[in-house]
């Protein structure tokens, strides 16, 4: 296993997550073991230690020969690791089993084998039975008398414990906080295997029936969090949400503190629309579109209060829907300054504007709703060329465009913290609902059900409450 991963890491200056995997304590142990087994690979190991972490993955190395090496539990992008969650015993065991299995499934990085198929485990694990199931890893969770959750990850290929940790869970089983804690456990296990923390411990804010709600990443816990409003965006800390209230009078941008439920006005003036707010990655700047008799333009102001500063000069045209780059230095936004809506990027003060979506589309119809991916590499947006809106991504390095949806009308994408999943609004099932799409596999799942639901924003990773 180790040699394989090392050699790949070296050949391709592999993904940072794989390198981290190789460096984790247990892996180092395994590494030494298998290195001894493979005798002649020691030089490769030494080499690895000096390899710097490079951020980019290249696909073709997938064809590396692997025969003759015991691979064990190994995350390979594009090739899913098979996991099984053993049925958890005790109070709320079924909920724990279900939640963990579902989180691994929703990560789109694993093939999850149904827990009911698991051979009974009493004491020692019968590795052969699990190998026959095609399982690479076994997740064994036990509720401790303290209420903590002990999680052991077994590596079927290596017939050994890969990771083990005791996780605290908030009291009040099945409460929103407890569920968020369990999602955090799933995310930690995912990090053990892939080197990258999962996105189960997140929520999605959205607009329904003229107010803002949140829902857990697995679709549970649908909760209204404001008395009115639309267009929510998260604070980078995840502790609150900014949104707009289109009341036809002062149309304020509001802030809601999710811990206390307190609402605060951030921007408000008679006869002005304050819409599509966004908060900078450092939490200090609020950006929003300000609609007045001179048009709709982006304005910035200190989050804690202060005078608004003009960012765009539309001269009667509209600029709206700002999205910060993760380093907080650039903006993506929508503007119809050219006569029809397109996505632009600019510096924070509105200078150095570039038309982002022109090259791929020419002069047809429209683009809107940009969202900059948390890894900084892509901007997702909605695009229409004669037909209906579809979600697309544009790679900022080579401007390559990929279409993510093709079913029904799709609007307003928002990235998950993993820069791999998008939540978007789609009418593919009839009424507009939120859907989560994995841009690598194209797999889509419906997140919400019920009345019309739209304008979603994926939270950052949330700490257990």
């Amino acid at each position, binding site marked *: 296993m180790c040699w394989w991963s090392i050699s790949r890491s070296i050949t391709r200056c592999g993904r940072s997550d794989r390198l981290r995997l190789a460096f984790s304590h247990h892996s180092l142990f395994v590494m030494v073991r298998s290195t001894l087994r493979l005798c002649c690979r020691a030089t490769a190991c030494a080499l690895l230690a000096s390899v710097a972490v490079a951020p980019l993955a290249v696909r073709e190395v997938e064809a590396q020969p692997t025969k003759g090496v015991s691979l064990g539990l190994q995350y390979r992008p594009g090739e899913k690791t098979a996991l099984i969650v053993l049925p958890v015993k005790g109070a709320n065991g079924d909920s724990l089993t279900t939640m963990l299995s579902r989180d691994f499934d929703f990560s789109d990085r694993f093939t999850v084998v149904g827990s009911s198929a698991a051979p009974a485990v009493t004491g020692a694990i019968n590795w052969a039975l699990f190998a026959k199931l095609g399982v690479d890893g076994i997740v064994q969770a036990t509720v401790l008398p303290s209420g903590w959750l002990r999680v052991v990850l077994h590596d079927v290929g290596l017939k050994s414990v890969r990771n083990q940790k005791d996780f605290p869970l908030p009291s009040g089983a099945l409460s929103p906080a407890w569920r968020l804690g369990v999602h955090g456990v799933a995310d930690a296990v995912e990090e053990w295997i892939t080197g990258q923390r999962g996105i189960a411990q997140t929520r999605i804010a959205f607009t329904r029936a*003229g107010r803002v709600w949140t829902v857990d990443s697995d679709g549970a816990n649908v909760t209204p969090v404001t008395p009115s409003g*639309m*267009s929510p965006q998260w604070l980078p800390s995840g502790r609150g949400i900014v949104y707009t209230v*289109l009341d*036809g*009078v002062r*149309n304020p941008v509001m802030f809601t503190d999710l811990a206390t439920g307190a609402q605060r006005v951030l921007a408000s003036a*008679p*006869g002005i*629309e304050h*819409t*599509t707010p966004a908060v900078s990655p450092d939490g200090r700047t609020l950006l929003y*579109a300000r*609609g*007045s*008799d001179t*048009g*709709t333009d982006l304005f910035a102001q200190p989050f804690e209060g202060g005078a608004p500063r003009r960012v765009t000069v539309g001269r*009667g045209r*509209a600029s*709206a*829907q700002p999205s910060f780059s993760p380093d907080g230095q650039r903006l993506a936004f*929508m503007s*119809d300054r050219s006569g029809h*809506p397109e996505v632009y990027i600019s510096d924070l003060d509105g200078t150095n504007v570039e038309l982002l979506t022109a090259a791929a589309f020419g002069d047809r119809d*429209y683009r*809107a*709703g940009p969202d900059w991916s948390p890894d900084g590499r892509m901007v997702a947006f*909605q695009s229409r060329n004669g037909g209906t*809106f579809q979600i697309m991504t544009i790679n900022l390095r080579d401007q390559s465009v990929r279409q993510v949806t093709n079913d029904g009308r799709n*609007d*307003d994408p928002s990235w998950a913290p993993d820069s791999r999943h998008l939540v978007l609004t789609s009418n593919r099932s009839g009424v507009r609902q939120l859907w989560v799409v994995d841009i690598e596999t194209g797999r889509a799942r419906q997140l919400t059900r019920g009345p019309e639901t*739209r*304008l979603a924003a994926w939270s950052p990773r949330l700490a257990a409450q």
Partner: protein
Amino acid sequence: MMRSSRLMLVLVSSSLVLGACKKKPAPAPTPTPTPTERAPERTTPTAAPVDTMAAYNEKVASARMRLLETIFFEYDADELRDDARASLDAKIAILNANPGLRIRVAGHCDERGSDEYNIALGRRRAEAAKRYLTDRGVDASRIETSSFGRERPAVQGTTEEAWSKNRRDEFEITAGGENLRPAS
């Protein structure tokens, strides 16, 4: 004109009176016929009030209707159509007849564009109407504008008919609407 025609009327009627009573030549022609002769002339206005009040009220109601009349737009456009201009011309006359009158224009969109961009488009539709009015002499301070994007559709549905009814400016009176006077 008015005065001369009334004079004519008096002359004609007095000559009629004169012609009617041949026995005596009337010494004072003008005062005597007034009670009888003026009477029919007055009955026209006194009989009318019932009708005129109703007509006046009707005029006020129709002025109010015209003032609050919704105007419509083409898809993804904020240009004023001819029917919208005609409606705005009527509104100008009413605004001119009522200096204390203030209005609010709210722009709306159909559901086809981006929800959030529609707020900006609705604002532009409201501003288009306001600009038309102010360019023709209505004081800008009398007109507020706002936008609801696609958030408050007038009609539900996903047909062009529904959409065309949702792409609109709505008008409301914010002050001075109590004693509305019709345009003269």
